[in-house]
């Protein structure tokens, strides 16, 4: 058994570092930027034409939260080549599988994370805005220096959740011909007739990746939590504080 594993593991890890990791990191990075942008637009109180923009972003969030990720991947990779636009894309939109994956995962993460960020920004008390305004800070200054740093702290745990989900969701990329970890494990299983072993092995690799991320989340929370919670008291759910 160890012989089989030692032969398969390097191949799986190689696919992991070549596709799973970049796919996750790039998609999450782009997704967060998109999410922040979306959240700020949806929270804006501007009127006029801006309402149409707001409606558009609301539609985007609704669309990506209401349809399965696998279906979204299929539409972008297999469906868009049939979308022929005169002048712009007369031959249909044909995307490289990796690019199609990045686009879909980013849009999907962006939709979910925008709700997290929107809630985090709303959770900062109104008094913080007022205090910043009263010392003459502009809206943008207040957002950048006062509100977002506090919102970030609140949003780390739920965003880490999205990140960890994304690591595992990239296994769906196997279905659009990306040779990531899960696809490789399928190929090996087809050769050596060891599906239980191979799929367990790839599951273990996913688990290791996610464990590393959870550990990183803890570190990040410590780092961000220090300044706002110097006394290092941890609140537990029965309301008793312990040091």
């Amino acid at each position, binding site marked *: 058994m160890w012989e089989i594993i030692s032969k398969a593991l390097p191949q799986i890890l190689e696919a992991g570092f070549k596709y799973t990791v970049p796919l996750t990191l790039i998609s999450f990075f782009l997704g967060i930027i998109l999410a922040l942008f979306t959240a700020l637009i949806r929270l804006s109180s501007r009127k006029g034409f801006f309402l149409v923009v707001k409606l558009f972003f609301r539609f985007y969030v609704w669309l990506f939260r209401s349809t399965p990720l696998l279906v979204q991947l299929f539409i972008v990779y297999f469906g868009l080549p049939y979308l022929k636009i005169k002048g712009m894309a007369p031959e249909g939109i044909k995307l490289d599988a990796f690019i199609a994956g990045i686009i879909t995962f980013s849009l999907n993460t962006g939709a979910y994370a925008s709700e997290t960020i929107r809630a985090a920004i709303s959770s900062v008390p109104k008094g913080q805005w*007022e205090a910043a305004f009263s*010392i003459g800070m502009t809206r943008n200054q207040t957002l950048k220096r*006062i509100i977002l740093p506090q919102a970030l702290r609140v949003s780390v745990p739920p965003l880490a959740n999205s990140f960890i989900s994304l690591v595992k969701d990239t296994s769906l990329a196997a279905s659009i011909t990306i040779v990531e970890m899960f696809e490789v494990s399928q190929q090996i299983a087809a050769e050596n007739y060891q599906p239980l072993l191979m799929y367990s092995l790839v599951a273990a690799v996913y688990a290791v990746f996610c464990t590393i991320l959870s550990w990183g989340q803890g570190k990040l929370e410590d780092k961000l939590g220090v300044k706002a919670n110097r006394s290092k008291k941890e609140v537990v759910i029965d309301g008793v504080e312990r040091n």
Partner: protein
Amino acid sequence: MELREINKSYGNHLVLKNINLEFPKKKVTVLVGPSGSGKSTILRSLNLLETPERGKYLFDDLIIDFTKGIDKKELSYVRRKTGMVFQSYNLFPHFSVLGNIIEGPTQVLKLDKETAIKNAKKILKKIGLESKIDNYPEELSGGQAQRVAIARSLAMNPEYILLDEPTSALDPELELEVLQVLLQLAKDGQSMVIVTHNMSFAQQVADKIVFVEDGNIIYDGKPDPFFKNNKNLRITKFLSSMVLK
């Protein structure tokens, strides 16, 4: 600083009814009255955290007509000239005491950090909180937090400091340390507008008393005739409800 014919409503409820008020420079104006009378709304209007629907706001040579709306320049001028202190302090929890105080000077006034820190230290010394300079807001008592909030406002060197029930959230013991700072500021000639429920403090600090009830100004004048031998039934009733006899 002056308000003229100010009207403000929330929905159908008129909270300020044709208010006319002057706030003299170098003096302390104290707004008193029952809860929900509109005194906080008056104060917040002075910092433009609230915008009345009608009326004029005069500040030095600037005239803001609320029916026409406020442009960015007017907004930043008024915010620059007035500092606000809130009942719940509203310190920035992710900054230290020093960070809270220099935030405005460095970000808004674009002062260099060294000068801002020097000023901050001077102010902290004045309010007796030098030792807390590197602490974070949640490590402070309520009285200390409110004094830091006052320091944050002073650091912007505003013409007027507006205080919205600055001691209402404090224990009597802690209230005293904040009131002492305010009395000292008044003595130094700092222009202030204070909303408070503490009548003995009001009597001691005020150069001018304004009694607000139900969006109307019932009294506007010197403190002595207000507190002593007042003939107005509403005011005597209010005053007697504020003190144990």
